């Protein structure tokens, strides 16, 4: 098509853009191949929204996932970013390698409960231990969707599969685990709760270090029936939000009304803020011991605690621990890397007689 305007068209309103000048369109992905109604699809949309709102530059984004229906989703959002769909349960290590080789990338990982809590448990734990700077979203449906609905390790004790099988094991609580491991950003949400999840994802982007968000995401095909504790109905009935959440990005003036005593302001690494309106408790998300207690107690009461569970901005991220230079190491060439001929001769000399 040529540049010449051949016919006057009614001027379309310029599409809305975010603070880096991109439209929401710029964050879209390929068409989903998941089941209609799958919670994961909703999360993809929330990720798009959060990345758009936060003004994440897709060029600097790296998307990571393992294997599973959930892990397919990075193909369905932000196609303008590079992505690695890895092998089952080993995404954390691959993301670690990529994000250390190029620590200027913004890391965004999506995994499933099977991918993380079963085969991936070891790598998940060690990712948190290293505090690799990335957002780690678990799309948690309590089953292995892609292999047709077996229980995963996050399935609650007593929950029931379609064909009647009951899960005899206590669920692994990925948030409890993350807090115990000292993860600096631990949140839980629900795929259906855009209002809560979008700011949480934005905040996770602003956190320096591993930010874990465990998102209950119903599998409509295999785990959305009665007896399931990861169904839309169950989650709606048992959701206990810790806070109402507003996200104030670093590039916006803080204009939220702080009703003292009713709101907690959480300052994030990049200068952004989460403004948390406390609900019926006096919850302080920066107190690890308290966080642990609350997680445990609500578990006992079969309540699904959602919101920001724990936050500690002070833990050095892995790239900080490694003292990486400003130029990411992947970009270094001979001139920065090669030992001089003299130095080399020195090494050799040291090995002589």
């Amino acid at each position: 098509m040529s540049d010449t305007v051949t016919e006057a068209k009614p001027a379309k309103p310029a599409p809305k853009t975010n603070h880096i000048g991109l439209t929401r369109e710029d964050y879209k992905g390929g068409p989903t191949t998941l089941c209609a109604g799958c919670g994961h699809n909703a999360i993809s949309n929330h990720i798009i929204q959060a990345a758009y709102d936060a003004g994440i530059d897709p060029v600097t984004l790296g998307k990571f996932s393992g294997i599973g229906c959930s892990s397919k989703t990075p193909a369905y959002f932000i196609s303008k970013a590079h992505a690695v769909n890895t092998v089952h349960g080993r995404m954390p290590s691959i993301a670690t390698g990529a994000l250390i080789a190029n620590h200027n990338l913004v890391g965004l990982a999506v995994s499933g409960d099977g991918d993380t809590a079963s085969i991936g448990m070891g790598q998940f734990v060690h990712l948190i231990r290293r505090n690799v700077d990335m957002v780690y979203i678990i799309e948690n449906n309590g089953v292995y969707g892609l292999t047709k609905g077996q229980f995963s390790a996050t399935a609650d004790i007593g929950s029931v599969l379609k064909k009647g099988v009951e899960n005899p094991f206590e669920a692994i609580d990925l948030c409890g685990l993350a807090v115990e491991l000292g993860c600096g950003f631990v949140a839980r949400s629900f795929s259906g709760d855009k209002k809560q999840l979008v700011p949480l994802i934005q905040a996770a982007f602003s956190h320096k270090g591993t930010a874990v968000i465990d998102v209950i995401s119903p599998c409509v095909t295999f785990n959305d029936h009665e007896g399931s504790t990861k169904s839309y109905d169950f989650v709606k009935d048992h959701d206990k939000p810790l806070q109402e959440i507003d996200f104030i990005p670093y590039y916006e003036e803080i204009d939220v009304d702080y009703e003292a005593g009713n709101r907690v302001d959480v300052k994030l690494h990049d200068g952004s803020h989460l403004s948390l309106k406390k609900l019926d408790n006096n919850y302080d998300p920066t107190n690890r011991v308290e966080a642990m207690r609350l997680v445990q107690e609500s578990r006992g009461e079969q309540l699904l605690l959602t919101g920001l569970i724990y936050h500690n901005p002070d833990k050095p991220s892995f790239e900080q621990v490694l003292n990486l230079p400003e130029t990411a190491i992947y970009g270094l060439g001979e001139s920065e890397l090669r030992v001089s001929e003299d130095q080399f001769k020195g090494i050799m000399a040291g090995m002589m007689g």
Partner: protein
Amino acid sequence: MNPQINDVNIQIATVNGTGSQSANLILMRSIFNMGIPVAAKNLFPSNIAGLPTWYTIRAHHKGYQASKKENDIVVLMNTDTVYSDIRGLRPGAVVIHDTGMKLDHALREDHINYGVPFTALVNKATDNVKLKKKVVNMIYVGVLAHLLNLDAAAIDKAVRKQFGKKEKVVELNANAIEVGRAWAAENIEKKDPFQLQTMNATADKILIEGNTASALGALMGGCTFLSWYPITPSSSVCESLISYFEKFRHDPVTGHNRYAAIQAEDEIAALGMVIGAGWAGARAMTATSGPGISLMAELTGYGYFTEIPAVIVNVQRMGPSTGLPTRNSQGDLLSTYYLSHGDTQHPLLLPSSMDECYEMGQQAFDLAEQMQTPVFVMSELDLGMNTWMTKPFKYPDQPYARGKVLNAEALEKVESFGRYADVDGDGIPYRTLPGTRNEKAPYFTRGSGHNAQAKYSEDPGDWEAGMERISRKFEGAQQWLPAPVLTLAEKPSEIGLIHFGSTRWPMEEALDLFAEQGFQPDSLRIRSLPAHAEVEEFIAKHTHCYVVEQNRDGQMRSILAATFPDLAPRLRSICHFNGSFLDANTIVSAVLKLEKGSELAHV
């Protein structure tokens, strides 16, 4: 009795964790400092302290680096093994024993026995009770110094090398050596023929372990990313590399590191990180041994199919399973070559020397990036953990070959970018790195079926085309793999010997021994797999070839048979797989037995 000059094989039998390693190194270095070629083999157990260890130093004017089965001199410092140590010894050999051990009934008359009152001597050397256990080892250095006529200056240099600036330690140990030497000079009546005389064969040489050479290769090869999980005998590759990193890649001003070295939680994670880093564009490596290789199977296949560069150094030890972690082997060829389910095959580099550990340590990064695939350097415990004499390494004169990467600028110029498109017809596609600021750059990497545009595809045609392209890539890229090294006999020979890796040294010595017996086969040392056309030519030129290797199943022979089926009938297997370092005589006798139906050499 004729003196046997500059040809002696000395074995020290000790207990590990008792500090004999310093004494052994001093002994070896002293000989080296006299200009006499040395080779050292450390046979140690898989625990930390308290079990038998044998350190063998071979001094030979011809510079033979291989192990020799027959010891000329043994120093018995380990009560637990004296009987078997003596039992295995040839008539005429020298036994240096502790008179405190009360071995009279074990000593044999066909040996030359020198009893040394170690306790009395060490008491002379130091009063410090804590140190005696260590210092006692210097006594035998002294005794040997006298017996072999070690040069005092050479010893002194070696002691200083060992203990550096710790003057007190230097003094203590030098003194202990002198105590031993003086006592021997006074009390031992030399009845053996072994003597050392100054030569000039080591002045331009260095002493180094293969794992250090591999690390140096990685350093010079531009490695910026290391992820590893400790495992014997590969750990020191990583530990050496980290030392080099700390020394040469740490900016003392900013405090920044131009490298990342990560101790992973296991080998799966180690390779995962390497693949992630390779995907992002870093030169990344890991080093491991057998069990680690097995754990890396799934991710190796992922790297192969997604075409991500990665370097894996496999310092082979004896398997299967935990096996013998401190014994040599070439037993991982088959499993590494075909590592991972589905149709996969990986380039293997097969270093045989310090030089090659170093060179291939660099080259592996070029290959991985040029071929866009995981590359394995198949080192061995023998190479990696023993000290070898070698020429100093060459400072690299080439830039890194970083393969086909399209940056933002380059992308501007191309019409379209397909991650797996065979633009150049060589099977090697172009890649872009994350963070590249061009809208053509991003693509989706996946281990599932994909087309030339890296889009998900289950189409049979896409699959077949992709897999065929990868085959083509391997065929074409073979030119870059190290070619085999041919050693032709003086006259045309019908018989070929094929070998690789550490077998090179006993093989070179075996060729000399063969020649003495009037048998002159050609030989070929394979330096990489898939095998080059030269290998095929070599086999085709000989009526039969012996493939000499250090594993039970003739793994190289199997690979060659599968690669060159038309020539497979010409291949015969000679396998050594008991974990001992291979020696020339074992090769000679095995070949001659098969060749002539007679056993000419005593093994």
